[in-house]
């Protein structure tokens, strides 16, 4: 029975390494494509964040914050940008949950992202916190 302590040690170390892993897989091709698409759109969205026209909503999406700062002629275009960005963001949250074999994590992923987008917004940008808009 000299083997028993060895087996115990192996099991213990296995349990520790498994517990330490807890990683999130975010490198699927679908996630890569969404990141690329969002990165390209960001060059158009950044000036709108800066002007306050568009803000970061508390639910992990972007939203029209002050329509008044957008010329009437460009409002349709801004709304289309917001819709496209939100479609990508929703797909991103869904894909991350799915890539990890847990589609039910989608809302957890969205909540995590919502907090991080808001926390990392640049100064001058508008973000939704506790239901109200705040300028960072």
């Amino acid at each position, binding site marked *: 029975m000299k083997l028993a302590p060895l087996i*115990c040690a192996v*099991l213990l170390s296995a349990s520790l390494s498994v*517990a330490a*892993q807890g990683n*999130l897989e975010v490198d699927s091709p679908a996630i890569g494509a969404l990141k690329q698409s969002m990165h390209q759109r*960001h060059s158009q969205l950044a000036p709108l964040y800066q002007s306050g026209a568009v803000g970061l909503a508390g639910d992990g999406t972007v939203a029209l914050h002050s329509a008044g700062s957008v010329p009437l002629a460009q409002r349709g275009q801004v709304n289309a940008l917001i819709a496209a960005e939100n479609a990508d963001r929703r797909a991103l949250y869904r894909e991350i949950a799915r890539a990890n074999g847990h589609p039910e994590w989608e809302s957890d992923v969205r909540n995590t992202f919502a907090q991080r987008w808001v926390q990392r917004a640049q100064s001058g940008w508008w973000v939704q916190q506790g239901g109200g808009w705040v300028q960072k």
Partner: protein
Amino acid sequence: MSPSLRKLFLGALVLTTSACVTINIYFPAAAAEKAADRIIDEVWQLREGAAAPAQPSAEDKKP
């Protein structure tokens, strides 16, 4: 196998199983935050300062 060794063996087995179950059921919040930050970095490219040039130019206009 002595009784104490058997207990240790069982304990290790339970810990291993529970560790697996823990990972599979609970959302890894800390890992998710790190993953979110990495993706936000890539999307916003904060290090390259994609939106940063707007700020110095606004400062320059001030008298």
